[in-house]
């Protein structure tokens, strides 16, 4: 045998120990600390792309595109609140904190949402005057940490969102590293400057649904029963969590899937805790229907909404509105390829930059550095967000008309089929070309 001429096999990367996994093992071995990052899940998950709409043909009658109206407005908080919220579009801006975001970014969110006729939401750390001033409709988050929580801001809000969890880290607290605890952030949160801000994973003064009911009553008493009370949960056991939120008196339930973003948490949490939003909507809607509360307690879903098709699919599955977070930041200018050279200096690349906790965002969005933050023009960024919200709405309307609907809320599960067995089972719609819905009847 001519040993010198035996063909050599090509080097082969392990599918299990792929280059990213290997790099993470090496990083962990060098530092002893788990990776903390922002943004949402990065691996492929079952998502709205695995569903398709059945446009109208003979058995259904479409609406004339761009001529026959397809309404988009939504009422939120019609169960108990004296002053429910009426939005022009069913796309809202999810809670993101001043602290995780710069003041300019928060202002831009307010400007964009206001121009589009929808709401913004505060986050951990309280309400800023800029945000209240720019947001026509502002939802005030009531979080476990209660950083910056005060009754004056509670009364200034248009709605109150009791945050129990978020999709990126259901069951987890927060960790905003000290780099972003500037003088102003520290003052708002009653913390020393520069220390790591730890957020509790549980509310300090209630422990279960019976307590939550009393807590919600207190918030209503303080605000004279005027404002809608939202309850936000990370998607894990949506049937039971939504049922208990309704039992506790929520006007609106916000359900955040695992593709939802975060300012900063453990990578392992982002990628391995929670369930995709695709799998969470139908059990949530089922809970509302079983209680006779569908459309009476409104459902907002979030976690990876990117385009008008996602909006339309979420509504067709039974949601009343959606919320966007990561997509809104991209619309403002986050991870813009024009900043590629600067992202590379940070060891990343445009589209993958997620070290939001370090506060060095070249786009001036996820930072408290005054020089970086000043790069973001709130007016121009707000305009981009308004444009994006308009596109989401136009796209959803186009699909709805094709399905013969005169309001986005008239979309229904019967307008959908699934491309994969997994999506069919999760969304409880038939596999395309069949009448088969795998696993129907169980949660």
């Amino acid at each position: 045998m001519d040993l010198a001429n035996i063909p050599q096999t090509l080097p082969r990367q392990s599918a299990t120990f792929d280059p990213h996994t290997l790099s993470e093992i090496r990083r962990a071995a060098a530092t002893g600390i788990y990776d903390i990052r922002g943004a949402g899940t990065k691996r492929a998950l079952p998502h709205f792309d695995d569903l398709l709409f059945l446009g109208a043909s003979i058995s259904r009658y479409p609406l004339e595109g761009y001529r026959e109206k397809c309404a988009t407005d939504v009422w939120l908080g019609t169960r108990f609140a004296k002053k429910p919220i009426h939005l022009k579009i069913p796309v809202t801006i999810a809670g993101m904190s001043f602290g995780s975001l710069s003041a300019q970014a928060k202002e831009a969110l307010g400007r964009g949402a206001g121009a589009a006729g929808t709401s913004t939401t505060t986050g951990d750390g309280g309400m800023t005057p800029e945000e209240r001033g720019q947001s026509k409709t502002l939802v005030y988050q009531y979080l476990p940490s209660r950083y910056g929580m005060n009754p004056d801001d509670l009364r200034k809000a248009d709605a109150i969102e009791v945050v129990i969890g978020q999709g990126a880290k259901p069951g987890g607290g927060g960790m905003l590293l000290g780099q972003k605890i500037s003088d102003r952030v520290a003052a708002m949160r009653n913390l020393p400057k520069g220390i790591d801000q730890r957020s509790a994973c549980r509310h300090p003064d209630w422990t279960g649904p019976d307590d939550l009911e009393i807590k919600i009553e207190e918030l209503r008493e303080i605000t004279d029963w005027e404002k809608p009370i939202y309850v936000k949960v990370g998607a894990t056991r949506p049937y039971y969590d939504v049922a208990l939120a309704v039992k506790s008196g929520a006007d609106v339930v916000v359900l955040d899937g695992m593709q939802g973003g975060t300012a900063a948490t453990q990578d392992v949490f982002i990628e391995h805790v929670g369930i995709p939003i695709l799998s969470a909507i139908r059990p949530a809607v089922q809970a509302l229907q079983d209680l006779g509360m569908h459309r009476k307690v409104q459902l907002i879903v979030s976690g990876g909404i990117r385009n008008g098709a996602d909006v339309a699919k979420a509504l067709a599955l039974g949601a009343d509105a959606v919320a966007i977070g990561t997509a809104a930041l991209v619309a403002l200018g986050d991870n813009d390829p024009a900043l590629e050279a600067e992202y590379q200096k940070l060891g990343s690349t445009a589209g993958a930059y997620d070290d939001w906790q370090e506060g060095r965002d070249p786009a001036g969005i996820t930072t408290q550095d005054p020089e970086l933050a000043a790069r973001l023009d709130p007016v121009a960024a707000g305009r981009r967000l308004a444009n994006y919200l308009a596109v989401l709405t136009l796209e959803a309307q186009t699909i709805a008309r094709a399905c013969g609907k005169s309001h986005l809320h008239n979309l229904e599960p019967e307008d959908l089929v699934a491309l994969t067995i997994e999506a069919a089972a999760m969304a409880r719609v038939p596999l395309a070309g069949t009448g088969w819905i795998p696993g129907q009847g169980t949660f």
Partner: protein
Amino acid sequence: MAPSDYNVVDLATSTKRELNQQLHALAANTNETLWRVENPQGQHALAVGLDSPVTVEIAGHAGYYCAGMNKQATIVVEGNAGVGVAENMMSGKVHVKGDASQSAGATAHGGLLVIDGDASARCGISMKGIDIVVKGSIGPMSAFMGQSGNLVVLGDAGDALGDSIYEAKLFVRGKVKSLGADCIEKDLRDEHKADLRRLLDEAGLPDVQPDEFKRYGSARTLYNFHVDNAAAY
């Protein structure tokens, strides 16, 4: 004060909603500064969200979140108080003449909370500037993640006092069953004695001496995340 000087709301005949609405409607310069709530019957959310310098006496036991988010007002509970009394208080004074349940003064930013009896678990949890004086003892996990303010306890403290504490100051006269992560005993310096004197006087305890207390606070080892402290998280 003569009874005729009081605005009396009898919860046997009025609703809690009516009580809170009347209290919310008061102007900052109101002359109706004395209120008495009869037959509270342990109802929840009594006298919450007040924002005027009035005195509200609750003639009996109160349920959850009594005096929640109080600003300016003085609220006296002539009985026991349920979970979360004076939660997130901003200013003013709340005086519980009996015992308090869990999470008394939780997340509160300011004002003074005085509890004549004992307080249960998590007293002063996540406190953010409130002063709390408990004449009896407090339960476990009190002042967890306490950020600022003072917690004064004349009796004993339960397990894990001051766990994950930031800059709140804890003063205990009796025994502490155990200290939580990052909480240590610290020197009782003159400025702390002066703070204690002021708080004891405000709580009606002129005969109790600051020297009788020990001070506890943060070792600050958890202020920046480090793997060598991982066992404490």
